[in-house]
């Protein structure tokens, strides 16, 4: 009524519908009239409009949304986090394939960022993180989308939505129904990276994952999530200079090494080696973990098909060091530091030099002290006896 119009107007609520915007929308093009959606209106002037029920036509989408984190009433805020219109718009709704659509593939992230980059908004739903969209935009996936214009680059809903039905069924990652949940992340990444996932499933990490092991890494544990970078990017968690840190996050953990009977001192024995020193000093061609162990299909050295199985070592080392002698297998590699190898000869050499160095230091210090004594005590005394 008039009073309601005045109140809405004073509150700045939208009172008018842009006819051109509506006419170019999918519903306008299809010749929809206002009351086809605003079904509570039957006369003019009309009462305040009630929310539109999109489900009248888009039944399955409505059901999917209501089962998702966006469509369920949030327990603490008591509100529904997102409605149809929050993502799709209202009078100017367009087909998702239309570049002007709010959920168009290449610009969809903006619709998500509308809420997910808004700290206050997210705080209402108990969410602290607002970095997902900006870090995604800097990732290899985001840059493929933005810089390269790759429409096949993954967008938010490709990973967070259900395959097939897409965006409407987004769930929190902790939910077993989320494609990003640990239980599904491998197959989700595999939707695009099938070859990698096949290799992963053959490696020790993938085999253990299939057995239900909860310690082994999935894709995101090594590659990170929204921030994922190309291996050629210095910011990548698997860039040559950073891959050791990524592997060591687990392989330097004593509890894990003990649980699986893995050798310890991984960090020390790599960083103390010529490979590790060269790498720390910026020589990126030096061997990193992946160079010898492989990446997705890493296998234990006890596996005869492993790149670090004794029988395959000459070939593996030979990739960088052609012609390396076969006797490289007769000894320990990266198990204990050269200085700490429990080996009688190494022990002997070590103590021989400890004693020799200590002896040299003591002898030199003694002779220097003696010489100082000569010059500071003996010589002045002798001069006192009449010497020049």
């Amino acid at each position: 009524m008039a009073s309601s119009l005045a109140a809405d107007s004073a509150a700045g609520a939208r009172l008018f519908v842009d006819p051109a915007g509506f006419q170019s929308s999918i519903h306008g093009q299809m010749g929809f009239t206002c009351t086809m959606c605003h079904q509570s209106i039957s006369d003019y002037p009309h009462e305040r409009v009630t929310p539109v029920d999109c489900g009248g036509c888009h039944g399955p989408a409505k059901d999917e949304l209501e089962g998702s984190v966006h469509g369920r009433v949030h327990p603490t805020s008591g509100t529904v986090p997102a409605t149809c219109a929050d993502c799709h718009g209202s009078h100017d709704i367009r087909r998702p394939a239309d570049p002007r659509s709010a959920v168009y593939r290449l610009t969809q992230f903006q619709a998500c960022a509308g809420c997910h980059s808004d700290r206050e908004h997210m705080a209402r739903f108990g969410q602290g993180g607002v970095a997902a969209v900006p870090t995604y935009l800097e990732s290899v996936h985001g840059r493929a989308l933005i810089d390269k214009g790759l429409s096949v680059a993954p967008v938010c809903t490709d990973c967070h939505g259900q395959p097939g039905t897409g965006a409407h069924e987004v769930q929190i990652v902790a939910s077993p129904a989320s494609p990003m949940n640990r239980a599904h992340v491998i197959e989700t990444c595999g939707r695009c990276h099938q070859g990698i996932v096949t290799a992963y499933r053959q490696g020790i990490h993938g085999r253990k994952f299939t057995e239900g092991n909860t310690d082994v890494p999935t894709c995101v544990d090594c590659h990170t999530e929204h921030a994922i970078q190309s291996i050629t990017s210095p910011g990548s968690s698997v860039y040559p200079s950073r891959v050791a840190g990524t592997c060591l996050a687990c392989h330097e953990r004593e509890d894990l090494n003990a649980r699986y009977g893995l050798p310890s001192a991984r960090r020390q024995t790599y960083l103390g080696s010529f490979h590790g020193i060269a790498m720390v000093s910026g020589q990126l061609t030096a061997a990193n973990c992946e160079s010898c162990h492989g990446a997705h299909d890493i296998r234990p050295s006890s596996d005869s098909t492993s790149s670090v199985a004794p029988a395959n070592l000459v070939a593996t080392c030979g990739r960088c060091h052609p012609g390396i002698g076969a006797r490289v297998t007769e000894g320990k590699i990266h198990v204990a530091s050269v200085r700490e190898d429990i080996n009688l000869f190494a022990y002997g050499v070590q103590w021989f030099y400890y004693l020799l160095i200590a002896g040299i230091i003591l002898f030199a210090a003694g002779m220097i002290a003696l010489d100082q004594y000569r010059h500071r005590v003996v010589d002045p005394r002798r001069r006192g006896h009449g010497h020049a």
Partner: protein
Amino acid sequence: MPEHRTPETRGPQWEPYAGDLDRTVVIRLTLAERVQHIVLMVSFTVLIVTGVPLLFPETPLIQVFGGVFPVRTFLHRFAGTTLAGLAAFHVLYVLFSEDGRRDFGRMAPRLQDVKDFVHYLKYQLGKVDEPPPFGKFDPFEKIEYFAVVWGSAIMVASGFMMWFFEATLRVFPKWVYDLIVLIHGYEALLAFLSIILWHLYNVHLKPGVFPMSKVWINGQVTLRELKEHHPREYQRWLRQQRIQPPEGDGEA
């Protein structure tokens, strides 16, 4: 001047020498020896600087190679090859040059060195007045020389085995190779500490010489220095002058 009359300096005495002890200089290191010393010094320094930090991979010391590790590797191998070449030259010098043969002979360890060492200790403590009758090379210099010879042999051999480890591992098992790496590192540390503590103090930093002896540059010592630090060599020089009257600088 106190008279130094040990049994060694007795006998046919050419003393007192008529000339000025402070103005007469004798050649202690020949030009060839000085050049060898400089090549050794430079290559040794480069080897230490480009090598020793690798022994401490977990310390900030290793950061000095940030971004230039391949340059480090090249320099280390270049200096190592230089040292190997120097060692080969030195062997030829000792075998075939008159100066080299003569000085190597004077470098040979003798029982007298033990006696000289004991004498030296007493002298340093002020128990005896006469300085020890060292020859051209005192016992410490002899030990140092042979330490350099032995150390260079170990470092050059192990260094080349590490450089060409692909071939080394065709002959030796990995665990022997590990020992070679271990030895290369400890021997380097030993050499570094010996030079810092022993050589620099005794040659350059000790009172009376500080801040630096110029012998490594001009090869010269005065007769006074020779008489005080190498009395037996001084006597030898005097005898030589008697046989061959001085024509200026003599050989010592």
